[in-house]
């Protein structure tokens, strides 16, 4: 394809903004449109469950760029207008307000939407946490809350529980795993996290299946467990995962399967690319399709997409990275370790609350865990990067 002169980025959060910035940084001088579903200028999501929810930051601080920096992008920023349809053949996008936008290249960066629980719709006091508006609504309820239940023991649920506890609320954290983040970190670090939460006064309810929410008069009153027990609550945070925001791609002919499926160049079709939480692309180093919901991937994948839009033709083979801050503890993970991988401490001491550990599987490093040692963990990143940068010998991933 000849060099594009009109690029449309659908999604104006971290990945969408970063795509636009990377295009300009790499010298793209053509027309650039950034279409966002939310009314807000691009803002950052990781602080929502921490600084914004705690009230340490006023909401405006979560913005990703100052107005001057946005203006310098020389892009049409269309906000508050979700995309509703894409025609890949002519790269035409229709929006909720009726706009018809055409481009040479469309970058899909529409992110994910939080899942909800049965009985949640319209129930006051029951919250998801994805957007700035979600965070502000939850904070308002948390300030008056007496009993908070957080449903979901992943990163977001554990962070929300820590923040609610830091605000002095009585907090119960309920989830299906034996300990928070066990599927991500493995049993040993997850047990450390569980101990941290318990020491800080969070009531942990591990191994519990949640059936739904209970309410009275339009307000949540508790969380129903599969065991029949009901955990009373006046404020509930539902953090039970999310689903890629791909409904608008139905009928486009593009392959949607837990995200917009892309090749190793993050390309879904000629002139259609995806970046960020919504993109499920072929990671050549891992030898399979991968979708990452984390902040660093949003910007790194955006940079890779921008390069490929401009003709770089390079596979995207990042070292996945996530961090989570809970109470005063900073956890960092490089790679995609499986929970059963063997964990070996290589620096520091878990008993002292600071350490770096490596995950191994069949003699290959699969991940690095930093526990209150971010710099030292990064120093070990190379060991995982080497394993991920070369094409995997594992079977072809085409239809995994």
């Amino acid at each position, binding site marked *: 394809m000849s060099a594009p002169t009109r690029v449309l980025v659908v999604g104006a959060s971290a990945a969408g903004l*970063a795509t636009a*910035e*990377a295009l300009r*940084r790499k010298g793209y001088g053509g027309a650039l449109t950034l279409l966002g579903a939310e009314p807000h200028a691009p803002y*950052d999501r*990781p602080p929502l469950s921490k600084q914004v929810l705690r009230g340490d930051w006023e909401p405006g601080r979560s913005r*990703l*760029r100052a107005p001057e920096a946005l203006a310098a992008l020389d892009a049409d920023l269309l906000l508050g207008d979700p995309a509703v349809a894409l025609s890949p053949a002519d790269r035409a996008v229709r929006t909720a307000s009726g706009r018809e936008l055409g481009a040479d290249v469309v970058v899909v960066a529409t992110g994910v939407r939080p899942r909800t629980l049965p009985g949640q719709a319209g129930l006051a006091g029951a919250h998801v946490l994805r957007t700035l508006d979600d965070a502000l609504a939850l904070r308002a309820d948390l300030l008056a809350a007496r009993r908070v239940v957080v449903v979901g023991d992943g990163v977001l649920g554990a962070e929300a529980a820590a923040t609610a506890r830091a605000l002095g609320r009585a907090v119960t954290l309920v989830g299906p795993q034996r300990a928070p983040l066990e599927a991500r970190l493995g049993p040993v670090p997850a047990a450390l996290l569980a101990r941290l939460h318990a020491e800080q006064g969070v009531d942990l309810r591990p191994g519990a299946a949640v059936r739904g929410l209970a309410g009275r008069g339009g307000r949540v009153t508790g969380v129903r467990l599969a065991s029949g027990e009901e955990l009373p609550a006046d404020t509930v945070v539902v953090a039970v995962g999310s689903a890629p925001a791909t409904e608008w791609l139905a009928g486009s002919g593009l392959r949607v399967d837990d995200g917009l499926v892309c090749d190793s160049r993050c390309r879904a079709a000629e002139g259609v690319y995806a970046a960020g939480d919504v993109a499920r692309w072929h990671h050549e180093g891992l030898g399979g399709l991968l979708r990452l919901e984390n*902040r*660093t991937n*949003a*910007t*790194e994948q955006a*940079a890779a997409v921008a390069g490929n839009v401009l003709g770089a033709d390079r596979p995207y083979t990042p070292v996945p*990275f996530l*961090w989570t*801050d809970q109470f005063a503890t*900073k956890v*960092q993970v490089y790679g995609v370790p499986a929970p059963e991988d063997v964990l070996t401490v290589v620096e520091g001491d878990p008993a002292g609350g600071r350490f770096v550990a490596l995950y191994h599987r069949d003699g290959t490093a699969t991940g690095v865990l*930093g526990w*209150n*040692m*971010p*710099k*030292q963990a*990064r120093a070990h*990143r190379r060991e995982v990067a080497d394993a991920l940068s070369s094409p995997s010998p594992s079977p072809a991933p085409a239809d995994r």
Partner: protein
Amino acid sequence: MKVHVDEDRCCGAGSCVLRAPEVFDQRDEDGIVVLLDAAPPADRHAAVREAADVCPASAIEVRGDA
């Protein structure tokens, strides 16, 4: 070019150090960014701009074209 870092925003990912190790470092104790060179020479500008753009916490600000 003038580089400014906001320690309060920094999440300690170290993305900046990976891209421009002559300009950025991290504190040993908590991984927070340390600015080594607030006015880096021209041959580092591209790397510094990229570091600012990819910072997952938007903690790096770059001013000036030269």
